[in-house]
């Protein structure tokens, strides 16, 4: 039982893995290879209706390899989950994986060559990656309260104590709470000489609950609190500035209040709407230049069969680059250094994270990139390639993205509306395939009359053309907040990636969605 997986254990294999990448350069047909080896240690605790449900502490090891090979160059990949028993032969396992990826790339290249001569084969190209510096770096995580200091008993006790069941909250008919905290170390190596050894942290608490009043339809609600940090994220160092327990109390009170509220009637046409930062986080995620439409793999139509394309880019000669996509008040930034779930120093291609404006004063300036998408579009890679699990192939992912803060205090935005609606908290999206229009439901919808909040409704949301919504923005608040969204899905097999999206309070025009079931 001596072998144990720890982040420190990777150090013993580092030099041999670097030598392996040096040797791989000489393998026949290989033009480029990179590999990500990740060790992650995590602890979790959860409660169901306030009673103990599950707890654990575990570590995982896995790697993913990419090879470009052949003439024309074609890609091949391999991923494998390993255990403590595999540690002594880690280098051999990685080498075996790289060789399988090489076989696939060479084989695909041969097909590629044959198809290039066919009428539709001219689009097939020899895979290129935009050049980036071969970085050698070691980045250590520095939590204020280390995930490794957490005891399972303490995590479990907090999950139980934060449950609405612990406070015997009336009307709550079901709830579950869970906490997870962990530390991961990723070694990124490439045949170009990159060697990036980066640690990262993740801590999150979650509450799911259902409340019911009388014979009314139950109200279901859930939300997350967390950060790319240690346990301090549960103690108030998060976007809410609240402890996990306080976060759960507020979400419970909100859900119970909603359970007795009338259903949102909706509006027949566009009206003045004020959207709080939490609601806007999902609007940014789904429809903006800081969200899915600006991911370059969608722009290049690689997600057509799955998560969809982008209306920003019908084609190379017909697209919205340099054109107006939003009101002049809207500037959108992608920012890998911001303190949310998308925080990273280097991405899964070894590209340094950046702070890049993709929409400047309403004009589309650029996209989020991989090295390959940047090469195809003649742009610069910007550190947006991520795979939440090392065995999977990285995809272009929004890291942290947000609408830059404006000049109007949020209270003044509310006061500015004589007759309108206030949407708080995001819930569920339904988006057209290229993101050109959307329906996004809110947790709470209030009537605004004469600058004051009125009746609270459940089941409301916005339905709008994307352009129309963003062009109608006429107030941007000062209260920027970036929320962690833990479950952004993309690719096949589906990869669920944590990202950060945010915005200040925004005033715009859109139709309010609603209907009694």
């Amino acid at each position: 039982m001596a072998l144990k997986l720890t982040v420190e254990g990777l150090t013993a294999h580092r030099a041999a893995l670097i030598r392996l990448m040096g040797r791989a350069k000489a393998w026949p047909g290989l033009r480029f290879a990179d590999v990500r080896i990740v060790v992650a240690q995590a602890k979790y605790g959860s409660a169901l209706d306030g009673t103990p449900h599950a707890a654990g502490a575990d570590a995982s090891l896995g790697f993913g390899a990419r090879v470009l090979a052949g003439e024309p160059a074609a890609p091949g990949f391999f991923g494998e989950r390993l255990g403590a028993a595999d540690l002594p032969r880690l280098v051999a396992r990685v080498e075996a994986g790289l060789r399988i990826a090489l076989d696939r790339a060479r084989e695909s290249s041969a097909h590629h060559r044959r198809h290039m001569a066919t009428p539709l084969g001219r689009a097939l190209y020899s895979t290129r990656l935009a050049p980036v510096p071969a970085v050698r770096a070691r980045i250590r995580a520095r939590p204020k309260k280390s995930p490794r200091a957490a005891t399972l008993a303490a995590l479990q006790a907090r999950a139980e104590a934060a449950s609405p069941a612990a406070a015997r909250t009336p009307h709550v008919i079901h709830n579950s709470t869970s906490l997870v905290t962990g530390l991961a170390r990723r070694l990124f190596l490439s045949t170009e000489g990159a060697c990036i050894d980066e640690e990262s942290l993740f801590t999150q608490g979650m509450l799911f609950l259902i409340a019911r009043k009388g014979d009314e339809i139950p109200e279901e609600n859930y939300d997350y609190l967390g950060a790319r940090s240690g346990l301090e994220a549960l103690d108030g160092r998060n976007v809410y500035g609240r402890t996990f327990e306080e976060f759960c109390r507020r979400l419970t009170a909100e859900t119970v209040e909603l359970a007795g509220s009338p259903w949102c009637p909706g509006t027949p046409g566009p009206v003045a709407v004020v959207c709080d930062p939490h609601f806007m986080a999902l609007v940014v995620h789904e429809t903006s230049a800081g969200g899915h439409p600006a991911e370059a793999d969608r722009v290049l139509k690689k997600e057509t069969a799955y998560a969809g394309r982008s209306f920003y880019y019908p084609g190379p000669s017909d697209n919205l680059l340099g054109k107006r996509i939003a009101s002049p008040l809207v500037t959108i930034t992608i920012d890998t250094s911001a303190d949310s779930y998308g925080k990273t120093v280097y991405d899964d291609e070894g590209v340094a994270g950046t702070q890049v404006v993709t929409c400047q004063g309403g004009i589309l300036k650029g996209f989020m990139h991989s090295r390959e998408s940047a090469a195809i579009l003649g742009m610069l890679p910007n550190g947006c390639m991520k795979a939440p699990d090392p065995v999977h192939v990285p995809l272009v992912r929004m890291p942290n993205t947000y609408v830059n803060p404006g000049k109007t205090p949020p209270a003044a935005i509310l006061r500015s509306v004589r007759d309108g609606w206030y949407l708080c908290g995001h819930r569920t999206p339904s988006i057209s395939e290229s993101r050109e229009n959307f329906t996004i439901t809110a947790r709470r919808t209030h009537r605004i009359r004469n600058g004051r909040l009125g009746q609270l409704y459940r089941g409301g949301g916005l339905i709008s053309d994307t352009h129309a919504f963003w062009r109608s923005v006429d107030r941007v608040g000062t209260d920027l907040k970036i929320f962690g969204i833990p479950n952004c899905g993309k690719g096949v097999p589906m990869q669920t990636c944590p990202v950060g999206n945010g915005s200040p309070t925004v005033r715009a025009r859109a139709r309010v969605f609603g209907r009694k079931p």
Partner: protein
Amino acid sequence: MTAAAQLRRCVRDAVRLVSSQPGVEAVEAFAAENAHRICRLNYTSDIPCNGVEEPKSTHEAGLGLQVVFQAKAGRCLGFGSEPGDLSRRGILRALEKARLGAVPDPHFKAFPPPQGQPTLSKYHDPRLFRLPEKDFVALGWRGLRGALGVLSRAGLRAGLIVGGDVTILGERMAVASSAGIDAADESTICMATLTAMSERDAAKGTGWAMATHLAAFRPERAGAQAAASALATRGGAALPSGAYPVVLGPQPVADLVDNMIGHALSLDQLDAGASPYTGRFGARIMSPLLDIYDDGAARGLIGSKAVTCEGLPTGRADLVRAGRFVGVLASSYIANKVGPAYYRAVPRHGFRFADGGRSFETVPRTSCTNFFVAGARPVPLARLLRGIRRGIYIGRTWYTYPVSGLAAGHYSSTIVGDSYLIEGGRLTRPLRPNTLRIVDNFVRVLSDVRGLSTRPRPVLVWAGQGLVVAPHVLVPGLRVERIGVAQAPSN
């Protein structure tokens, strides 16, 4: 791949070894190996591309233990897993993790005892476990070639997209417990899901191919089907908002199943009060034309398994019969928690599905296998269409979600391809993709089903679990909203 016999030996050894440890009351050992190979496709006629974008794979093997301990706090349940080591050392490491995380879960009652023999055996294709790399990569190119051949013969050269994947999955598992379970299973799946577009014509088509054996697998047919559907839907028209008579094709029905109906009929959601059908067992909850069941033992379908991940034989579970709520999807955990008196749960749905196989790293959860939407008096599709003067045939939807919680039934879904206008009882013109969004209530929609077609078809949903076998379904008044693209002004 690890031999099936080795997995079986491992779980038997684990039950013997763990049962002999101090403080252990009961144990369930699950070992699995999954080899998941995918050729992800991406062809774009106007943008440089790789054709076969990602020939890739993931592989995992290992052991998971659920252990009941007698501790000072009382009876505690713990789970631990260990990848890559099926030896005594791996078993002990998993046991240590299970002991460390054990909690007094009051809802856990017992591991299930054996319940009969599985009806499926030797239903997999051993060749798929050792498919050479060149043959695997060739399958991806065959899928792509199927689509490009149709598009090329139609004379199209620009504005074309072909995407999707060709997937080969080999799963082996064994499970044993101190309650007497001793079972093993091997299954293989070949799938191709392709999308083709003529982007200039706003036309999108979908094609599927699935088999349990390589000899029956034709990825090129999925490509050709997708391309043919894209060609057929060129030049689509848009419709205004309103309530239309619609015929939902098998994919939109599968989308409803995967995102709502399956959850609404799962005992976990019913017990939590999250389902619109909570408290309605025995009542009529859908149109009397509808029968809904799950059958994990249906021969030849890719959702089939001989045993669940709890070691119980799979089989047919009737959920809705003639519109009446008669059964639920359930794992042993939730069936025991709720008790036998309510919902009459037969725990045939305790699976450990993860992305690409049966995972040893998780405990069993309630999942579908082959989910059938069927019913009384099916008629040919042409007869379903015949009575519709002006309506919509909906062939493909996406982002189909309950938007205000499952219990409310509200859902929203965008029509993205393979769809047509129905005029005078016939399919006439294609419907332009991304111009209509369904905004309705699935409880109401299912209550109002007026007809089903013969010849149901198996369908896969992106990131869905299990297979859905669905016919075309007629609904008289589905509410849709017109959505469109506002033109971006130039600078």
